[in-house]
C-alpha cells in the first residue's frame, strides 16, 4: 500500500516535471541545415516534419532513412514501400499539381530535376514553399544516387543514417561485383517498355534501365544514347539480345514470357530462343536505393542454369 502510494507520489512529481522537460526540449534551437539544390537554390528547413516528395526513388530514400512518416504527399508512380498507398497523390510524376502540393502544407518539397519543371518550382516558391530540386534520378548512376542520399540525409540532419545507406549499397554492389567477375561474360540485354502486345519501346543508354543493366554485369543491347525507339522486328534482330527485360507490369500487359516471344523479331534472337525474358521492378526508370538488390536478382536470373 505504502509502496503504491509512494509510487503515485513519484509519478506525480514526474508529471510536474514533464512540462518543464518538454519546454526545455521545445526551446532547444533546431538549427536549419542549408542544402543546395541542382538549380542553385538553397533550402533551409529545421528538420522537416511534412514533406512532399515527387519521384519514387526519393520517396524510397526517405523511407530508408527512417523518415517515411514525414512523407505527406507524392506522385502516382511509386509502388514501394506499400505504405505509399495511403499517402496523398499530387499527380503525374512529371506534372505535379502546384495547389495540390500546397494544400498538403509541407515544410519542404523535394523532387528530382526531371520531375519538377522549373516553372512549377517557381510557382511553389512564390507561395513561400521551400523547394529542393535534386539531380536527375538517372544521371550518373549509383554515384548520383549516393549524392541524393547524402543531400536528403543532410536536410533531415541524419548524416550517419545516410552514410549507413551508402555503405550498405557499396557492400551489396561489392558482393555483386565478385559474382560478376567470376562469370566473365557480358550478356547483351534489351529493355522493352511495353503497354500491351501491340507496341513496345526500346530504352536507350541515358536511362535508369541502363544503370541497372550495367550494375548486373550486362551491356545494353540498345545502341542509341538518348530517348526511346519504337520496337521493330528488324531492330530487334539487329540488337540480338541475350536477354530481354520488361517492367513487371509490362510483362503482365503483353501476356507473360509467351507474349514476349510473339513480339516482332523476338523469336529470332538468342533471348527468344533461350527464353531469357525477365521482369524487373516497375520503378527502375528512377535510380533508387533498391538498385543493388534489383541488379543482384537480374544477375541471378541471367546466369541461372537453364532448366532442361
Amino acid at each position: 500500500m505504502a509502496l503504491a502510494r509512494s509510487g503515485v507520489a513519484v509519478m506525480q512529481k514526474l508529471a510536474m516535471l514533464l512540462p518543464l522537460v518538454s519546454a526545455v526540449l521545445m526551446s532547444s534551437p533546431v538549427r536549419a541545415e542549408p542544402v543546395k539544390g541542382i538549380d542553385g537554390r538553397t533550402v533551409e528547413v529545421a528538420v522537416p516534419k511534412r514533406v512532399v516528395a515527387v519521384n519514387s526513388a526519393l520517396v524510397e530514400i526517405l523511407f530508408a532513412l527512417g523518415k517515411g512518416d514525414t512523407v505527406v504527399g507524392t506522385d502516382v508512380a511509386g509502388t514501394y514501400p506499400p505504405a505509399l498507398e495511403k499517402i496523398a497523390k499530387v499527380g503525374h510524376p512529371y506534372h505535379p499539381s502546384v495547389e495540390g502540393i500546397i494544400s498538403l502544407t509541407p515544410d519542404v518539397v523535394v523532387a528530382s530535376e526531371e520531375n519538377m519543371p522549373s516553372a512549377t518550382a517557381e510557382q511553389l516558391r512564390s507561395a513561400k514553399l521551400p523547394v529542393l530540386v535534386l539531380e536527375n534520378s538517372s544521371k550518373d548512376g549509383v554515384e548520383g544516387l549516393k549524392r541524393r542520399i547524402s543531400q536528403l540525409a543532410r536536410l533531415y540532419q541524419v548524416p550517419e543514417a545516410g552514410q549507413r545507406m551508402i555503405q550498405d549499397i557499396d557492400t551489396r554492389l561489392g558482393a555483386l561485383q565478385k559474382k560478376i567477375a567470376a562469370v566473365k561474360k557480358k550478356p547483351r540485354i534489351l529493355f522493352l517498355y511495353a503497354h500491351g502486345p501491340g507496341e513496345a519501346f526500346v530504352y536507350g543508354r541515358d536511362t535508369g534501365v541502363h544503370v541497372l543493366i550495367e550494375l548486373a554485369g550486362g551491356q545494353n543491347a540498345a545502341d542509341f544514347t538518348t530517348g526511346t525507339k519504337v520496337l521493330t522486328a528488324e531492330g530487334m534482330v539487329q540488337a540480338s539480345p541475350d536477354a530481354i527485360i520488361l517492367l513487371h507490369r509490362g510483362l503482365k500487359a503483353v501476356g507473360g514470357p509467351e507474349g514476349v516471344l510473339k513480339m516482332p523479331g523476338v523469336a529470332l534472337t538468342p533471348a527468344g530462343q533461350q527464353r531469357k525474358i525477365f521482369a524487373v521492378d516497375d520503378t527502375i526508370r528512377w535510380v533508387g536505393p533498391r538498385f543493388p538488390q534489383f541488379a543482384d536478382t537480374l544477375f541471378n536470373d541471367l546466369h541461372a542454369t537453364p532448366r532442361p
Partner: protein
Amino acid sequence: MPGFHAPAFWGRRTRGLLVLVPLLLACVIASLGTGAVSISPTQVISILFEQVGLPRLTDFTPQQAAVLQAIRLPRVCMGVLVGAALAVAGAALQGLLRNPLADPGLLGVSGGASVAVAAVTVFNLRVLGTFTVPVAAFLGSLMAILVVSSLAHENGRTNVAMMLLCGIAINALCVSCTGLFTYLSTDDQLRILAFWQLGSLAGATWTSVSALAPLVLVCVVGMTWLANPLNALLLGESNARHLGIPVERLKWTIISLVALGVGAAVAVSGMIGFIGLMVPHLVRLSLGSNHRALLPLSTLLGASLLVLSDLVARTVVIPSELPIGIVTSLAGAPFFLYLLLRQRRLHTP
C-alpha cells in the same frame, strides 16, 4: 431613323448580358474560392481588400494569401482571357467563312502551333528561356494562318471555300510534322509535348497573364468593332460589297485578329478544344446570329465556361489535377450533341 432596328435586338443582347455577366462573375468567384487549398469567399475578399489597403473582414493565413495571389488569381485571369479569345475568334470565323463548322483550329492555328512547339522541344531550343515555347507557338499559328490565307487568295480575292480546304490540308501536314517530331523526341520531350497538347492553365503566372492580356483585348475589342460588317457578310460577299463593306480588308483584319488572340491563347495554355466551336453555337441557338450580340456574348460565355472547366480540372482529382483540354471536350461534346439534337427535334414537324 433612330431606333429602327431596336426592340428585338436590344432585347436579346440585354437579356444575354443580364445572364452572362453574373454568370462570369459567379464562375470567377467560385473558382477563386475553390481548390486544393480552401479559401472561403469572405477570405478571398479580405485578401483582395488587404491588397488595396482596406480592412480585412476575416482572418486568413499567409499561405492562403500567397496561393490566391501567386497561383489562383493569375490562373483564373488566364482562364477568362483564353476562353474569351477562343470563343470570340470562333464566332467571328464562323461568320466570316459562313460555315458553322469553322473554328480557329480549322485554319491551322493549333496545328501550326503544335509543329512549332514540337520543333523547339525536340531541337532543345531555349533561346528565349521560359518564353521559348509560347513564342514558338504564337509564331507557328501565325505562320499557318498566313499560309492558308494566301493560298486561298486568287485574283485579289479570298475564296472562302478554298480557305477551308487549304486549312484542312495544312492541318493534315501539321499533324504529320508533329508526329515526326514526336517520333524523334526523347522521353522527357515526349512528355512535354503530350501535356502541351492536352492543354492546361497550370503554368499561369502574372508574367504570362500580362503578356496575354493586351493581345486578347485587341482581339475581342477589334472583333466586336467589326460586328456590323460581319452581319452584312451574312448576306453573301457580293451583297456585302454592294453595301459598301470592304470585304477583302474585313477578311484580313479578322484573320489577323484570330491569329493574334488565339495564337497567344494557345501559346500560354496549349491546346484547348471545343470552346471555339461550341460557345458561338450555344449563343446562336438561344439568341440568334446577330453579330452585335453574338460576339460580346460569346466572349463572356467562353470566359465563363473555361474558368468553370479549369475549376473542374483542378478539383475532381484533388490534390492532383486533370489537363483542361480533357474537361472541355469531355463535357462539351456530349452537351453540344444534346443541344443539336434538341434543336433538330424542335424544327422537324
